[in-house]
């Protein structure tokens, strides 16, 4: 068969000339691109299914999903599978993806693509697409298994949470896991490096979560309301890894990265067998600093979160030995109810940023003991200070004993009295060393207060929760306890709740005005509401409110600066966003590369607050508000000038002199003292008119000379 015959049989006649050739190849490129993409998808799919990775992952994920969800009472499968099972699935998926990419690398498949005149884009896209679709399919099966396990064990699904996870969490997390693992596998020079980097990337997932948890500001209001309105716990919306404390975990990750950097550095030095050069020494120093810093942070964190609480626990236990007597020696025999409460009217003000709570309550107390009582016993966690109490309108002084309050008013059997109380205090995150046992939960975003924390006066003598077995504050399915095992209780009562706070998005188990009975359910807990006792309030910052407030403050500040010195040369003052070091909120100095132009105004802290509202509550972030008048992008001399110009403007704005004034500031202050503030500002206006080139020190001196000469001739103003 000749070449022409081959061509004929392949359905194309050989082109007689160049023109015909050009016609033949002039087919629509999108069509050819699609064929290429499909070819890659087909071949990569075949390769993937011939390897063991997806099958092992599928089996593991399904077993985990079904096992974790089975028998657990919950619509919270998003919480359990997503936070406990899915991370393992993601880890496996990332490892197998990286391994596959690494294997291709080692088998010189890149050479296949690199050595042949193929289009690279379909190959890269196709490879990603195949891996992504495979893991998506595995994920669907695993989630279906989790859902089936829940339904078969006789519990309802939380479809809203499922929807949220599938709209937000799963697609994004899979994209992260797949793309990063492919990249690592393709670039890593050895299998060990690939595994190590993959593990690091997996650990880095919480950073992704951190970002996502602050992303509600970007959601259109209806979507935000939809998700917020169905009481999806924050971690349900953003969960990517275990429900670990983010700050603590980030520090661990930082430590890990630092140690890894150190190891890589030492390895590089050892391999090169060279004398340690200056760059290596600097890097080494940096890594050591990171290690030391992260270790110190962790140590401080540990002390704050665990050690302090443990000490307090010991103190409380030592102070209340009479528990055993009251409860007849058996912890589970409490609570005792010499009184019951009813008609609760609660007003609560919460501030998660300060962990503070202030509340007032009116409620009825009835003696149900059958014996006359000399005092009315109530239970309120000792964190809270009672500021005022009245019984039937008469002020009384409550006697405090540990977590208990005794109101010095006698109460006959069956008698009812009306109590009003006000209290305030700080809410602790209550954890112990041996596990995440907690009775309240606080993080930078939210406060969750279950009844067993004792945040409002409970009836009678009850031992407040210090440790709820091995269970966390959310009392998930794997917790062996049931609500009835909680050592606090609450008889039927009618609650009316009003909760408020600054810029808070508030969810609670009542609707604010309507009277509700006990049996209010905890956010995200598996138990049917009728089984639970007491109130739960959940509060988190409303990102949009904060962003609006930040924007308003920024606009105000800009207006003030503009009023002082209008920018004519470069247009109005504008914001510049620069990077920060993520969790300390420490801004970096603006540079020309950050978009700063000479004389532009940087409101770093507030700008960050627009995207990361957590920083908004950071006092350092706020102090940054007006500190940066970028001196970079100028010459050094100009930078010095502008740094003091900014200091002077801040002085004008706030009335506070800088802590370390420089010569230029002193000169401006002298002009102000001699010729008036307007004269000093006039100097700055003249300097600003020299932008964008900016003024030189000589220009500054000349302007001062002119202004002062005018003042000497009677043209000056007074302050």
């Amino acid at each position, binding site marked *: 068969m000749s070449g022409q015959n081959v061509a004929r049989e392949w359905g194309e006649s050989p082109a007689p000339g160049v023109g015909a050739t050009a016609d033949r190849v002039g087919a629509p490129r999108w069509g050819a691109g699609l*064929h290429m993409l499909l070819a*890659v998808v087909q*071949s990569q799919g*075949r390769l993937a299914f011939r390897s063991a990775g997806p099958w092992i992952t599928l089996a593991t994920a399904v077993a985990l999903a079904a096992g974790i969800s089975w028998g657990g009472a919950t619509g919270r499968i998003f919480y359990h599978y997503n936070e406990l099972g899915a991370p393992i699935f993601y880890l496996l998926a990332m490892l197998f993806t990286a391994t596959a990419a690494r294997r291709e690398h080692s088998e010189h498949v890149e050479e296949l693509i690199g*050595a*042949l005149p193929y289009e690279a884009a379909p190959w890269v896209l196709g490879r990603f697409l195949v891996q992504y679709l495979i893991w998506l399919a595995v994920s669907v099966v695993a989630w279906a298994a989790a859902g089936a396990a829940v339904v078969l064990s006789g519990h309802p699904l939380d479809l809203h949470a499922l929807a949220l996870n599938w709209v937000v969490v799963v697609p994004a997390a899979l994209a992260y896991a797949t793309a990063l693992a492919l990249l690592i596998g393709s670039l890593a020079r050895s299998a060990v490096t690939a595994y190590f980097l993959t593990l690091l990337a997996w650990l880095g997932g919480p950073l992704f979560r951190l970002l996502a948890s602050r992303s509600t500001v970007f959601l259109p209001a209806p979507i935000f309301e939809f998700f917020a309105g169905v009481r999806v716990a924050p971690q349900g919306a953003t969960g990517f890894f275990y429900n670990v404390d983010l700050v603590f975990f980030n520090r661990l990750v930082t430590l890990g990265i630092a140690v890894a950097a150190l190891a890589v550095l030492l390895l590089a030095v050892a391999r090169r067998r060279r004398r340690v050069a200056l760059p290596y020494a600097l890097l080494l120093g940096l890594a050591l600093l990171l290690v030391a810093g992260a270790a110190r942070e962790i140590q401080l964190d540990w002390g704050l979160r665990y050690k302090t609480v443990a000490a307090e626990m010991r103190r409380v236990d030592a102070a209340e030995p009479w528990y055993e007597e009251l409860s007849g020696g058996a912890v589970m025999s409490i609570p005792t109810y010499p009184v019951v409460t009813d008609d609760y009217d609660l007003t609560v003000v919460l501030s998660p940023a300060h962990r503070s709570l202030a509340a007032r309550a009116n409620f009825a107390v009835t003696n149900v003991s059958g014996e006359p009582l000399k005092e009315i016993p109530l239970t309120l966690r000792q964190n809270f200070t009672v500021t005022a109490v009245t019984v039937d309108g008469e002020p009384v002084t409550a006697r405090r004993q540990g977590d208990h309050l005794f109101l010095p008013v006698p109460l006959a059997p069956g008698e009812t009295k009306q109590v009003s109380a006000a209290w305030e205090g700080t809410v602790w995150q209550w954890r112990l060393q041996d596990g995440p046992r907690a009775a309240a939960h606080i993080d930078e975003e939210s406060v969750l207060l279950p009844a067993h924390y004792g945040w409002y006066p409970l009836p009678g003598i009850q031992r407040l929760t210090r440790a709820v077995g091995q269970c966390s504050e959310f009392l998930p399915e794997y917790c062996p306890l049931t609500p009835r095992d909680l050592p606090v209780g609450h008889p039927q009562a009618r609650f009316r709740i009003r909760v408020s706070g600054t810029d808070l998005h508030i969810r609670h188990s009542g609707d604010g005005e309507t009277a509700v009975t006990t049996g209010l359910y905890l956010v995200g807990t598996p138990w049917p509401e009728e089984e639970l006792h007491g109130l739960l309030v959940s509060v988190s910052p409303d990102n949009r409110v904060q962003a609006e407030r930040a924007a308003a403050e920024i606009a105000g500040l800009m207006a003030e600066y503009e009023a002082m010195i209008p920018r004519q040369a470069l247009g109005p003052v504008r914001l510049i966003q620069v990077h920060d070091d993520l969790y300390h909120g420490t801004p970096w100095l603006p540079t020309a590369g950050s978009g700063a132009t000479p004389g532009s105004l940087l409101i770093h802290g507030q700008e960050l607050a627009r995207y990361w509202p957590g920083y908004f509550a950071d006092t350092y972030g706020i102090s940054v508000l007006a500190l940066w008048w970028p001196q970079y992008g100028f010459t050094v001399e100009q930078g010095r000038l502008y740094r003091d110009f900014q200091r002077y403007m801040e002085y004008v704005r706030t009335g506070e002199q800088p802590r370390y004034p420089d010569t230029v500031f002193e000169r401006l202050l002298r002009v102000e003292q001699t010729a008036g503030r307007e004269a000093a500002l006039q100097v700055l206006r003249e300097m600003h008119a020299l932008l964008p080139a900016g003024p030189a020190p000589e220009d500054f001196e000349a302007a001062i000379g002119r202004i002062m000469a005018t003042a000497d001739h009677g043209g000056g103003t007074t302050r």
Partner: protein
Amino acid sequence: MEIRLEEVTKTYSGGVRALDDLTLTIPRGMFGLLGPNGAGKTTLMRILVTLLEPTAGRITIAGIDRLREPHRVRQIIGYLPQEFGFYRRLTAREYLEFAAGMKGLPPAQRRRQVDELLVRVNLDRDARRPVGGFSGGMKRRLGIAQALLGDPRVLVVDEPTAGLDPEERIRFRNLLTELAGDRVILLSTHIVADVESACSALAVIDRGRLRFTGSPGELARQAEGRVWQLTVPARDFERLRGGLRIVGARRVGDDMELRVLSAENPLGQGTPLAPTLEDGYLALMEGVPA
């Protein structure tokens, strides 16, 4: 239809100039590319098939501007590199289907061409075997098949017969000759015999520069009147090797029969021989001692 290169230069980042102001026209038919290691042959081919960009110069391939329209060039070009990888877990058929897809062929056309080519390269009986189990020769044949996918108007082959046994070499040479028809086939090789028997024209490049272009006969004539046969006692061979440009030696009893390149009759005892392409190539590249 032809390939035109005008003043093409390629300088790598380390400053190495792989191609230096190369101007060359490659006509339709089989065209050989000869040159020593490092001459720039592979660089030239990788530039033609769009895997590398030249530093300077102009290139047109079948009327298409290589630099402006690389996507169109990729659709009319087939390339068989000296070495490349395979997906070892794919079968031969699956691999060719993938390669056809990467050339943008629609599925129906893809299947037909793959069937044809598997027969053509004698792999139809092994089409369902994973490529990982193939011998070197089988892999090379599979590579040839992928280069022919899409009925390319231009075929660029780099050392295609390396690693093939003589029978396969001849078979492949014949296949190329058969395909030459109205195509441009650029054959780069160290094996001068492949060029001699298959190419109607050739070029020799050295250190990125064009040293010769013409027919194999013209290259052979570079050694016209300078090839001699000389028979000397075997014990003198070592002594003579330093002074003579010996391009072939054969032991005959106690004597050595030598093929020598020389402007003069060596030792006055030589018998003139007709030059081969290899003689011409050596004479061109290394010169002929007086």
